[in-house]
């Protein structure tokens, strides 16, 4: 029965990976932008939650919406004034630029908050559980994370499918030069896309920080999980990202079940197998160039 528990916990963990990977998937899907600072941004958001909460004297849950809005603003400005300048036929400029931003964020956090491990307080639901039977119990917080992932991806899907601006997102992703002919300012669309990506990474930072402790250098590890989820699910596919997160989460949980040391390794092995045998991902349609 403990395998069943591993499956359940793995699926729920997949929700966290999916929230984190959504922004990566969106930035890549809309503007072919590989954001190597994504993990550091999640950690930055975690620290911003700490700071805003202590400045305003409220708990971490209350300060989250503020941080999400702040992150969205940073995303929009960062895209319009920095990342947009790196967009071109060669993706290397964007990769290097975001890598540099990641390094800057890590060092800024180290200078501002020191290397001490910190964590976020999501309240009593962090430890409360629903007991299914002797070996399976579901944590309220894990469940909330998973449900949040589904709500987030569902909302994003509705936005992309049924709104005028969502349609403009998809058209720009297909062909930015032709999108301009429709009166769409592609650079502005990129700004909006990055605002949404940063908002989701803000949410991810909160769930990450409430689940485990974090330090200024925690970002790159998270980035790895995020990329694995995106690639397993298939580049540019939103629900694929959720499935990719779940596959990764379950692989890690099963690995852990085999032997504690196999936790992360099992996830990496599944990722490499997908890359070798289904390079477009389990649910992807391939990348248009």
């Amino acid at each position, binding site marked *: 029965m403990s395998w069943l528990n591993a499956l359940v916990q793995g699926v729920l963990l997949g929700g966290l990976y999916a929230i984190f990977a959504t922004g990566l998937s969106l930035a890549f899907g809309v503007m072919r932008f590989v954001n190597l600072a994504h993990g550091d941004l999640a950690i930055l958001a975690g620290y911003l939650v700490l700071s805003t909460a202590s400045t305003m004297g409220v708990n971490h849950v209350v300060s989250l919406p503020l941080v999400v809005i702040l992150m969205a603003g940073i995303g929009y400005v960062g895209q319009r004034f920095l990342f947009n300048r790196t967009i071109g036929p060669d993706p290397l400029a964007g990769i290097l630029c975001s890598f540099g931003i990641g390094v800057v964020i890590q060092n800024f956090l180290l200078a501002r908050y020191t290397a001490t491990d910190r964590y976020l307080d999501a309240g009593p639901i962090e430890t409360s559980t629903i007991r299914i039977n002797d070996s399976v119990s579901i944590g309220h917080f894990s469940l909330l994370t998973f449900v949040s992932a589904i709500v987030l991806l569902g909302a994003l899907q509705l936005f992309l499918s049924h709104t005028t601006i969502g*349609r403009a997102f*998809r*058209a720009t992703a297909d*062909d930015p030069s*032709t999108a*301009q002919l*429709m*009166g*769409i300012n592609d650079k502005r669309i990129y700004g909006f896309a990055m605002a949404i990506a940063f908002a989701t990474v803000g949410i991810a930072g909160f769930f990450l920080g409430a689940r485990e402790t974090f330090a200024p250098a925690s970002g790159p590890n998270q980035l790895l999980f995020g990329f694995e989820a995106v690639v397993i699910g298939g580049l540019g596919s939103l629900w694929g990202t959720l499935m990719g997160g779940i596959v990764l989460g379950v692989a890690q949980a099963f690995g852990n079940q085999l032997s504690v040391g196999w936790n992360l390794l099992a996830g990496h092995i599944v990722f490499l197998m997908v890359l070798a045998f289904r390079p477009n991902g389990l649910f992807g349609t391939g990348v248009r160039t």
Partner: protein
Amino acid sequence: MLVVDGMSAGYEDFRALFDVSMSVREGETVAMVGANGAGKSTFLRAVMGQVRLHSGTVRFDGRDISSLKAHERVKLGISLVPEGRRIFPSLTVRENLLIGSFAKRSGPWTVERVVTMFPMLERLLTRSAAKLSGGEQQAIAIGRALLSNPRLVLLDEVSLGLAPVVVKQLYSALPMISEQGATVIVVEQDIHQALAVSDRVYCLLEGRVSLSGEASTVSTSDITAAYFGAAI
């Protein structure tokens, strides 16, 4: 309505247009013909703002729009049907048409009216636009451009790669565009097709205007000479 003065333009270090001047009056249909590589598509893209000018100006309604970006020119009422159709593959046919109205200009064109003009689109509206025939995609591209309710429509090589019967079908719909009040510039390699629908004609040869005149008065031999650049 559109006045292009001394336009030189090109890509990187390659110059495709040299000192091109032309003008289009409101309500006219003007054809621009020329051989492959004469600079016709570059001209349209420069009018649209997708090719940088080395020198010269583009005026629209008397206003110098040379420094405006393409999406800003769409808002003023210029619309381009690009070469190669450039349909958005991840959008449905209806969405491809609706995206044309992104600039929110008011006017006569709606999805329903486009479908009236191109009845072949009716049963395709909910389908993905990715796997349609060239003719169907061209109809979408024209309809999409019209949904911005443009005052000036630029048509780039509508007939390219299409069967003659499909070309005839598409061209028979063009008068409807003028009837709704739009001014049209048609770029074509096919001289006869272009002359049949237009009031005036410009011929481009190696990036320069080699001939201009009333479509009804220019002789075929003049055009042929201007088109190929040799006295035949």
